């Protein structure tokens, strides 16, 4: 593990231009996240959690300040480079799972491999990853709408993992699940952290944030506690 942080926010500001005036969603945030950290980002709604997620997930760029991910300045990258970063460095796990409805469970997991290698997977990796998150093999040809929430989230985690990303970005991953299933999912994330992944967990639930080793508290676009 190196001393260079995996993620560095230096004085990052994000301003949204709304009809009612400019809204500063992130207000000069500076923050380092090292490799293999398990971080929870907490805060009430409107505190800038989602904006922070979008920045860390390279879905958006800062209005000002600098954001480095895996040593690269996001602002200086082309759209295509950012797309490839999202594909290769980051695994996304969403509250609403966001599986591709027209693809089967297996194909959803295979999909990022196809994006990366431009061909169908013949290595069996997709099936292996799906198995590793405890997904029933018999269900792998089912479409997402035929799966339960817990099963869908397992598929989503498998999809996030299949390209072996450094960062797992989890946005309220248990928000749409019952308590029991939610804890199973968190156990999976804990296991992945132990295997060396950097896990970033956005939540408003302190119980869930306890799983993390470090809590970043956001309020009105500022880091109030880290």
């Amino acid at each position: 593990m190196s001393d260079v942080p995996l993620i560095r926010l230096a004085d990052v500001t994000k301003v949204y231009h709304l009809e009612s005036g400019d809204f500063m969603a992130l207000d000069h945030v500076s923050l380092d996240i090292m490799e293999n950290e398990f971080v929870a980002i907490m805060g009430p709604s409107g505190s800038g959690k989602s904006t922070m997620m979008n920045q860390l997930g390279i879905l958006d760029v800062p209005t000002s300040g600098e954001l480095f991910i895996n040593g690269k300045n996001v602002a200086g990258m082309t759209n295509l480079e950012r797309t490839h970063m999202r594909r290769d460095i980051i695994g996304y796990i969403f509250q609403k799972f966001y599986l591709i409805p027209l693809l089967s469970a297996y194909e959803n997991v295979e999909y990022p491999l196809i994006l990366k290698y431009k061909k169908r997977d013949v290595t069996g990796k997709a099936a292996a990853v799906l198995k590793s998150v405890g997904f029933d093999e018999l269900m792998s040809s089912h479409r997402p709408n035929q799966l339960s929430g817990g099963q869908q989230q397992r598929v989503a985690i498998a999809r996030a993992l299949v390209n072996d990303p450094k960062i797992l970005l989890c946005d309220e991953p248990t928000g749409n699940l019952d308590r029991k299933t939610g804890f199973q999912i968190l156990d999976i994330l804990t296991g992945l952290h132990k295997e060396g992944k950097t896990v970033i967990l956005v939540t408003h639930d302190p119980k869930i944030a306890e799983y993390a080793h470090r809590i970043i508290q956001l309020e009105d676009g500022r880091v109030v506690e880290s």
Partner: protein
Amino acid sequence: MKDIFFDLSVRSVRLNFLRSILASIGIVIGVVAISSMGMLGTNMQLSVKQQLSSNVNTIMITSDVVRTTSTAGTPVTSQGIDKSTLNDIRNAAGQNDVIPIHRTSTQFTIGSTDGRGSIIGLDPNDITKFLTIESGTNIKGGSDALVGPNIASNFNMNIGSRIKIGQNNVSITRPTVRVAGILAARGFTSDGVNTDNAIIVPDTWYTDHYGDKDLYGQVNVILKNIDTINQTEAAIDDKVNRKTDVIRVSDASSRLSSISSTLGTITTFILAIGSISLVVAAVSIFNVMMMSVNERVQEIGILLSIGTEKGEVRRMFLYEAFILGIIGAGVGGICSLVIGYSVVSAMIGNTAYFFLPESIIYVPYGMIIGVVVCVLSGLYPAWRASNMDPIEALRAE
């Protein structure tokens, strides 16, 4: 399928099967319209060409009638082709048959029935060079005549019938000719000699009764080899029109090409009308593609956020448009054959040319145009999908 984006497109089309099929019907109609209109036009051109091309080996020479007179009030006179000009033509025409033609129109009487028709004076030796005698024999005696099939049937003429030539006037004894043979029908001819309603008399008989000895209304040159038409025409023109324009040289091929080009224009026009239906089809494909994009905003957001390239999203939607096009063009191609055949047989009455390459080519043309129109209609929707902001797209419900 190897390409997952193609798979996704196929599944999307299948998911919205009815909508996709309805949109494709627009393309079907467009393809059918273009193909069958194109085939109709081509078949029309081919069958008209066939009718016209029977006499294309003939050069027609007429006197240059456009002559102005210096004195006002003097009628414009049409001069015929005189003997020296005819000799020049014969020299220039070389081995080819040169046929001088006398012609006027006349009244005649057969039995007690009066009629009117053309009377053509020809050297009896020239007659069989371009006319076919269906029954009877060629002219042998000085007052023998041949008649066209229409005039023969209209006036009940038979071999041996006698025709009095000239105006029915009791005070004058009219000359009489005897029908020696009846000609085969020629239909619409392109050598300027329409014999179906004519009485053919020997040139000597003609000049005895109408004068104009050694002055011909028209001279035809029948070529032994069609490929020499241009050089023969040029030779005649050089020889005769040395100082001033004495004669006008023309041939059926120029008329044929001008008729063909007119028919070509008509074909283009009806093709353009057919294309209008493709424009309508393009709008419906565009509409369906926009619906597909708008319904799948969140899915597009997912694809983009987990690292799908813009080009790949674009490709997915273009595949979808392509699939709609292929379905429409495939069904349209089959329908074109059936409908095109029916239209051609109903409107032209002759399907002999339908399966010729220049006619049937409109089916693949129509199909290709249909697919291209589909893909073009999908360009903007695909572009729009690929340029969505993933964050906003994910938020869509």
